[in-house]
């Protein structure tokens, strides 16, 4: 292997699939698109290209969501992908960019420290001081380059940057141009330019999207895994992989316990029991699949280093309570109600009831 990169971009890994799809694609393409919208959907959902090349599924889930996302980009509306951690937002956005524009590398990672200069343009101050404002002294951002080239640009974790900086995007999204008042000039986006943003919809303590900006996005929410079996499968597999990577001491298989974690998370997340008979209070945390995985890992570590060598109720209890109770008043209430009405009465969950009660 000669490639020195730790991780390759989507368009490099799947270059063969992209080529095959482009070759067999005779449907109409929007301006500057590398392939037709139908081919983009096929690329992400998997299938077979016209020449028989198998296309792997990049996203496992509802095809209609991806169709909505692609149709949004085709109508030159900006796309916002919302979802819990671990729902493949960034993954989907990277592949969309790779398929539509042929490159997924135009990314702006939004953080609390991101300022307007990183969104619009910055200045090469040496040149600015020497020659005054000029096009040469401009430092172009990925957004500006995308506008000039007519490609997609990705904004990761949009809501992590300040609201005032977010609003810089308003003109870009509605007028498709970016004024440069210092030069009395503007950059006009070429056809094919568009924005894919991702954001977490349950995180507390990040900036809200202003309604002015929100209106300029079509929003697609990527849901957590649809069925309990699917989610249990994902969590079990990921726990095994991560635990092995971390070289945790091996323990007895814990599939049954992980199934309980997933069930408990799903019930508290959805606000009803799995059988749908009882309504529950929901908790303030997101209880995402990613968190279920981390509870599984912590319980493994605890069981292996301090416990009986197998994940059991006491090993899970403290981690579960820690994951569920984020707000000391409301979440304790919800958990308390859940314990009394569900856990206590469920067959085979007595040990969990006792263990969690001990921790609380």
């Amino acid at each position, binding site marked *: 292997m000669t490639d020195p990169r730790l991780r390759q971009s989507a368009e490099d890994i799947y270059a063969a699939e992209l080529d095959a799809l482009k070759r067999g694609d005779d449907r109409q393409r929007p301006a500057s698109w590398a392939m037709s*919208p*139908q081919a983009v959907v096929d690329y992400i959902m998997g299938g077979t290209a016209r020449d028989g090349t198998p296309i792997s599924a990049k996203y496992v889930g509802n095809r209609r969501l991806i169709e*909505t996302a692609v149709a*949004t980009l085709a109508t030159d509306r900006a796309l916002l992908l919302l979802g819990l951690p671990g729902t493949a937002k960034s993954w989907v956005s990277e592949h969309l960019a790779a398929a539509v524009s042929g490159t997924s590398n135009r990314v702006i990672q939004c953080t609390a420290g991101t300022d307007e200069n990183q969104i619009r343009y910055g200045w090469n101050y040496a040149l600015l001081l020497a020659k005054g404002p000029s096009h040469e002294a401009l430092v172009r951002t990925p957004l500006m380059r995308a506008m000039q080239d007519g490609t997609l640009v990705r904004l990761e974790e949009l809501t992590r940057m300040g609201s005032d900086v977010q609003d810089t995007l308003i003109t870009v999204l509605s007028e498709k141009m970016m004024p440069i008042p210092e030069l009395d000039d503007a950059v006009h986006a070429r056809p094919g330019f568009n924005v894919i943003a991702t954001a977490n919809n349950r995180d507390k303590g990040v900036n809200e999207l202003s309604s002015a900006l929100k209106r300029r996005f079509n929003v697609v929410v990527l849901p957590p895994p649809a069925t309990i079996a699917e989610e249990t499968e994902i969590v079990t597999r990921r726990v095994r992989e991560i635990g092995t990577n971390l070289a945790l001491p091996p323990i007895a298989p814990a599939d049954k316990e992980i199934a309980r974690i997933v069930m408990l998370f799903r019930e508290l997340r959805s*606000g009803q029991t799995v059988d749908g008979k009882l309504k529950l*209070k929901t908790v303030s945390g997101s209880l995402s699949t990613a968190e279920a995985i981390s509870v599984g890992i912590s319980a493994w570590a605890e069981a292996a280093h301090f416990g009986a060598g197998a994940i059991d109720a006491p090993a899970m209890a403290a981690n579960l309570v820690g994951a569920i109770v984020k707000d000391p008043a409301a979440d304790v209430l919800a958990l308390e109600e859940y314990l009394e009405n569900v856990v206590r009465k469920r067959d085979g969950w007595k040990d969990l009831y006792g263990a969690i009660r001990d921790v609380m």
Partner: protein
Amino acid sequence: MDPRAHLFGIRHHGPGSAASLVAALDALDPALVLIEGAPEAEPLAGYAALAGMQPPLAILHYQADDPANAIFAPFAEYSPEWQAMRWALARGRAIRFIDWPAAHALAFGKALDDLPPDDEDGEAHDAPPPPVSGDPLDMLATVAGYTDGEAWWNAMVESSQPGPAMFAAIESAITELRSASEAQGGLSPWREARDAVREAFMRLALRAALKDESGDIAVVVGAWHVPALRAKVPQAEDRARLRGLDKVKVESAWVPWSDSRLASASGYGAGVTAPGWYRHLWQLQGGSEASSPEAFAAGWQSRVAGLLREEGHAVASASTIEASRLAIALAALRGEATPGLAEMHDATLAALCHGDEVAYRLVERRLLFGERVGAVDPAVPQMPLAADLERWQKRCRLKPEDLEREIALDLRTEAGLLKSTLLHRLTLIDVPWGRLLDAEAGRGTFRETWRLAWNPGLAVNLAEALVYGVTIEQAAAGKAVAQSRDSGDVGVLAGLVKACLLADLPEAAELCITRLQAAAVDSGDLVQLMNTVPTLVSILRYGTARPIPSEQLGALVSALAAEINAGAQAAAVDIEPGEAEAMRRAMSGYDRALALHGEAHLIAMWHRELAAIVQHDRSAPAVSGLALRLLHDGQVWAVEEVAASFSRALTPPAAPAAAGAFVESFLAGGAEVLIQDRPLLAALDTWLCALDDESFIELLPMLRRGFSDFADTGRQRILGIVGSGTIAAASGPGAQDDDASPAFIAEALPLLRTILGITP
């Protein structure tokens, strides 16, 4: 087949079929229109042209002596049958209904009810895939990759000429489908048998019509039946099939229908998944001016936006435009000419709801189902509920009279219970013939007193209730269920549960209980929940002189109690005196109810919570006074512990006003606590004596209220104890026993022992 017969295979309630059918009828101009429907409806068909007839409507056929056995033939304005009727009436053409008579259908339905239930469902599960589950066109659509029959029909209309050619294409598709289905073993046997008889009726009716009429004849039937009508079956064979069919006496009437009932596949024919959407489609296809996909999408998205705005969501017009564009782009992506419901939904979600399914769900019901309730023209005779009421009146021996009169019912007798059930059911459907006088009725008593007064206006209320059902029982249950769906208020729902139990509607009661459980979880109002528990416990405990679903109700009480127990402490902190008073009252009722309910772990939890309330510094004094009293009365805390908390609440830094409220709430209900438990009296005494004049005067009204409940003797005895200066001397209940027993009690003891048979 005679070329004068023109078969039009339609999709029941399909706007696309309706539009194509009207166009085809205009082109053909037949002399006679035959419609799939029970012949009993023929005399009623003429009313369809009246101005006051506003769909959704239904023709109801019911067994004369048992209205609960009924079938409905519902019509929306976009139902092809309705459009065919209106077309014929507007041009003065004759109409005939050619399906089998409802007399047989009702008898058949009744026989089916008596079969073991798996005959209907089990078949469908065992057989490979059920060839036709609902509408055959839906199935063709699924095969062709469309979301439903309407989307497919749309595509057909787009690609071919509406009219005869189109119906021919559908006929050949259905013929294929039916032979494939027969090759697979057919539908369930009962359905095969039923369809064979129905189709024999239709063939005979068509034959008769051809004989009577010289002009063209249009036959409007479900697409499924077209091949069977076309089939050459000897007349004798058809006649043989009709022999020996059971029948019952049938009455028929027009009844108002509603969008939501149209949506449920009840009774007759296929249900409609989304009446609101179908109406929009009908406006596109049946409307006079042709409509572009753009206008179609924009019209729908504006409707969504309007509903969202009513729910308080800010939706910009710009977003509506984007939603329409997205819907059209999605349709193009999926290879469809006009956006279907799936595309509209996805677009709405992304562009109008910011991806938030919850916001969409707020409007979904109104959007897809609509809220339309049909109206029957006043000239049309309609009365099945009135007939049912008349039967009830005969059974109960209750005559409708204008004059007011009171009746007393003994619920232990069958007659009394029957009358009470009827009156409670009528109250539920808002026909207030009787008014229940004693509010406590149904709570551990066997008596109810009603004041009866009938006025003719009640007949109107009765007719309005038809939307919910055709018998008083069905209507009452239906209305209770509908109300429970609309209400999220815990108090209202608890009332509905009780009303359903009183009206002997156990199934509706169970649904209301489920709703109540859901609403209780959402409700943040603990006081309301606490007030709900006693109502439910009293139903459980004393019953309603009728069977009740005690297990479910018990589980609900336990769930509510768990929720209250979890939140009571937090709810008692930092509240206004007025709220504290409401909470105090709710708590004492709840405490009693919980004790009656008698689940040890819930009571233990409640006591832990009470202790937490007492121990929390910022609990409202009125609440924590009661909490302490309950801990004391329940003997959860020893008297020393109670006394310690008591004096902690009274001494500084507690403000005098707070201490006063605490004392008032602690003392409410009886002097015994002070007489028996001297440490409490001592603490109270010390506190009172330490008050400065100003605070004392300020607190006087509160103290007076606290003591005013005490009986005279109680007050006298407290005065005696305080006056004799023995408060401090006695330090516990044990010491007090010996000291305070007067000599005359000792003298009486030997005799008492003899009476009770206790040897010393």
